[in-house]
């Protein structure tokens, strides 16, 4: 059964319209066969009686109203899945582009996935050790979480993502299978190469599935890329019990592709021209992170997005923050001062952290140390603001102590080498060393007995001798 329709009725951007089509179903994939024998793939995005609107994944260049025949496939967009995908590179639409041939599909799945029943979810509790103090200590990544990195153009988010990939370890049972699914959307060649090189150097390449949609690739494939990636991730996680870390970069390019597509469909725009359903659309991807009850696999997501003009209230970071379970925000001022990773501690947060740390997971005092560091560092900002008005010399003794604490905290706790892999012990001890810089009475967030045991001004001496 292969109905073919000759010719098109109109072409507009990535969309083509066909008339007199019978038997088309919504969301179905169609094949467009050009006169020169090449084929393109498209998807039905609107049906009005016998008129259908098709989005063409590879773009409409070269299509005319007469040189094309269209064939309905009767199926939604599916991805061929198997464990052989590991180590392979695909286009945004899921076609192999590494020249190693097709992947034989052990299973085929609709790339849109299906919503995971909240009843079937396992609440995420196991942390992932990244070896990065600011993340492990203050915004711990939990298996099954979605924790985005909010960055800006020119900041070191790629380096940070690469470090996360190389250093991430499951806290317990390191025998469990761990793999990475990487989706690049609208990134330039250099970035894609950088990641390829990093994966190679760290010896994880055979455990990575890559979906690449470069900056000059068609935008429709950009919309498909994260969906293909997540379909692969879900397959590996839930069918093969693997723990999957999904890195998606750059979500802002993705959202821009969606905006372009939406406007070519003539939809009513919401904020900043993005379609009104941007939230639902982003959620349909982010919500695919999780753990299914009774299984061993998990899907953890680290989407990376660049905030246009470093504006965290821009629709893409804003809506992302509302869906994801926290965020890691990078700060340009820290970056410019050469601090790597430039994690802006105060606006960063991991919502699932509270249930995945402490006794039995990391260390009993983890939550207290993290809270106190947050609160103290928030005070540093006040002291700095005041200092810049009245001069540092005029500040009270405790405010001065906060300034020192702030400086050392940034230099030693936030900043670390891109190859430095710290244990939780190291991180928390470092936290205590730094807190010992402050007058004891300032540690109001913690139990007195905890302070008694760990607070010791001598510990802070190492920082003073540094200077």
């Amino acid at each position, binding site marked *: 059964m292969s109905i073919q329709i000759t010719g098109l009725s109109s072409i507009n951007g990535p969309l083509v319209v066909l008339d007199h089509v019978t038997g088309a179903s*919504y969301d179905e994939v169609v094949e467009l066969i050009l006169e020169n024998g090449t084929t393109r793939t498209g998807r039905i995005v609107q049906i009005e009686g016998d008129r259908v609107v098709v989005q063409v994944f590879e773009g409409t260049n070269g299509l005319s109203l007469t040189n094309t025949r269209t064939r309905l496939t009767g199926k939604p967009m599916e991805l061929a899945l198997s464990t052989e995908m590991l180590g392979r590179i695909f286009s945004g639409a899921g076609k192999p582009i590494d020249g190693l041939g097709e992947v034989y599909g052990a299973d085929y799945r609709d790339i849109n996935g299906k919503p995971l029943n909240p009843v079937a979810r396992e609440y995420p509790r196991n942390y992932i050790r990244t070896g990065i103090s600011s993340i492990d200590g203050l915004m711990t990544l939990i298996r099954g979480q979605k924790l985005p990195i909010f960055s800006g153009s020119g900041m070191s988010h790629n380096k940070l993502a690469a470090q996360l990939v190389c250093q991430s370890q499951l806290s317990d049972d390191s025998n469990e299978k761990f793999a990475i699914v990487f989706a690049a959307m609208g990134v330039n060649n250099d970035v894609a190469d950088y990641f390829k090189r990093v994966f190679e150097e760290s010896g994880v390449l055979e455990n990575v599935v890559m979906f690449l949609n470069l900056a000059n690739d068609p935008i429709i494939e950009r919309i498909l890329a994260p969906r293909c990636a997540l379909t692969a991730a879900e397959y590996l996680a839930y069918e093969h019990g693997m723990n999957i870390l999904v890195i998606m970069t750059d979500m802002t390019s993705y959202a821009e592709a969606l905006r372009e597509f939406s406007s070519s469909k003539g939809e009513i725009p919401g904020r900043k021209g993005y379609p009104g359903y941007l939230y639902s659309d982003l959620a349909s991807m982010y919500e695919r992170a999780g753990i299914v009850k009774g299984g061993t696999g998990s899907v953890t997501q680290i989407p990376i997005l660049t905030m246009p003009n470093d504006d965290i209230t821009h629709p893409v970071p804003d809506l992302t923050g509302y869906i994801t379970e926290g965020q890691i925000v990078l700060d340009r001022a820290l970056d410019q001062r050469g601090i790597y990773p430039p994690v802006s501690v105060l606006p960063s947060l991991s919502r699932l952290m509270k249930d995945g740390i402490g006794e039995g997971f990391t260390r009993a005092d983890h939550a207290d140390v993290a809270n106190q560091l947050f609160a103290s560092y928030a005070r540093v900002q006040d002291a700095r603001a005041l200092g810049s008005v009245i001069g540092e010399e005029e500040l009270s003794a405790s405010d001065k102590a906060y300034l020192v604490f702030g400086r050392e905290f940034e230099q030693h706790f936030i900043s670390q080498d891109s190859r430095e892999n710290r244990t939780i012990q190291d991180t928390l001890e470092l936290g205590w060393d730094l807190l010992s810089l402050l007058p004891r009475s300032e540690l109001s967030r913690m139990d007195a007995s905890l302070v008694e045991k760990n607070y010791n001004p001598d510990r802070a001496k190492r920082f003073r001798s540094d200077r």
Partner: protein
Amino acid sequence: MNNTIYSINGPVVTVKDTKDFAMMEMVYVGDANLVGEVIGITDDRTTIQVYEETSGLRPGEPVKGTGAPMSVTLGPGILTNIYDGIERPLRDIHEKSGAFIERGADVPALDQTRRYDVTVLVKPGDELSGGSIYATCPETPVILHKCMVPPNMSGTVTEVMPSGSYTVNDTVVRIKTPSGTIESLTLCQKWPIRTARPASLRKPISLPLVTGQRVIDTLFPIAKGGAAAVPGGFGTGKTMTQHQLAKWCDADIIVYVGCGERGNEMTQVLDEFGELIDPKTGNKLTDRTVLIANTSNMPVAAREASIYTGITLAEYYRDMGYHVAIMADSTSRWAEALREISGRLEEMPAEEGFPAYLPSRLSQFYERAGYMVNLNGTEGSVSIIGAVSPQGADFSEPVTQNTKRFVRTFWALDKSLAYARHYPAINWTESYSEYVDDLTAYYNEKVSPDFLTCRRRISTLLAEEASLMEIVKLIGADVLPDDQKLTIETAKAIRLGFLQQNAFHKDDTYVPLEKQLAMMKIILYVNDRCEAIIKRGVALSELVELGLFDILAGMKYEIPNDHPEAFDRLYEKIDTALAPFEKTAAEGTVNAQ
């Protein structure tokens, strides 16, 4: 009459050339019987929003009317359950279709096989009207379910089954209506979600919804039958606030609507509420809770419906004479669902792409809150606590602004408080509650006449601190005179010791009103004593060194909720510490105790 699909665009489907459907009628769309609702009718097109994913639908597939508006089934078995946006039980869907939700799942809302121990309360010849209770059965260990005549029905009882064990669909009573028809009453009934269930009278607000959260109960209380909004950017703790209220507020029934939010959060509620014990009844919190989970990746049209499903369930339990609190997290996602569907219908957008009817829909929803005298004479209330997720944490956006017009309690969550890990991050200068006046009698009679006096003094101190901090920001705290420094010290103790509350501490997570009052009193006592001493020329720094303010900041952990006498020891400690300073002058000390 065969009606078939003509066009498909996302969740919106149209049927051509038909006059068979009524506005808001529930329909089944396609061969898979997807649930939909008629949302627009013109002479040649009927527009339907579909509550499930429309992938794979074809023009020409059938559309079947049901003749009834979108309704929910009301009866025993609702509590402890978890539903999707259109009252389909997610546990049953899980059993039927596995971890991922399949489309067209046809599962009844209530367990059809479970038997309830029913006590029939009427006898033949009794006159029943809408809302009359004809039978009761224990639904959970804490809630007695009352089966009521549907509001629009009345009649004389003709036949009564003996009390005993029945399922939800068994007839227990038959009545003859005034028009002469015989109606069979089972344990359940249907009600359209977009219509408020009628009550006979709306009563003035007089009772607070006690939440055990100090900043809420003391500074910005919400009343039973009231409505509150919790706006805040991401990470400010909206969901955490909602969870705390769902756990600890003194309503009889909790309806928790997760509307377009995270799946993991719903799982957390499921896990946690299944383990937590309600301090008032000693039973599990789930026994009084129903969850409606329409996570952000579930179909958008069902998200729009989930809010109405939730409030209808709440009204049903109110009709039985219970106090119900409904948490809607988040109403912004609901508004966005409206926007999305409005966009698909190519309606003219108003502000920020939201449809022009956003304010009227919001007001219709919030007006379903209230303290009512029900048709059967019982009294019950529905209180709404709606979270708002303003875009870019900007409270001037349409959903926050419109919500503000219809709620009387506003808990503004503040990013800078959240950054400093001050939770609950309710900003005390931006938030307000208009219920304080309505609740004055309650506080005076049931708690203490001092309560509102202390409350006023606490909020004055905080306001004074806010204006002093403007100066401190410019020139530092050192130059202030000692009495102003004292205000700052006291306000700091209020912030750390009173406003900040630790949801993970066994005592601090819920604090009864009496302890809240005792805490306020002791803070004010220290303030007054110090003020008097400073007036006699003692430097504040000497007093601060005594560590009194640190004691105030730590008392929330030190004094267990069930040991109020521990405050006496605290007073003694303070008196002893301050005694040396009293000797310097003999004149009258203030005793606020």
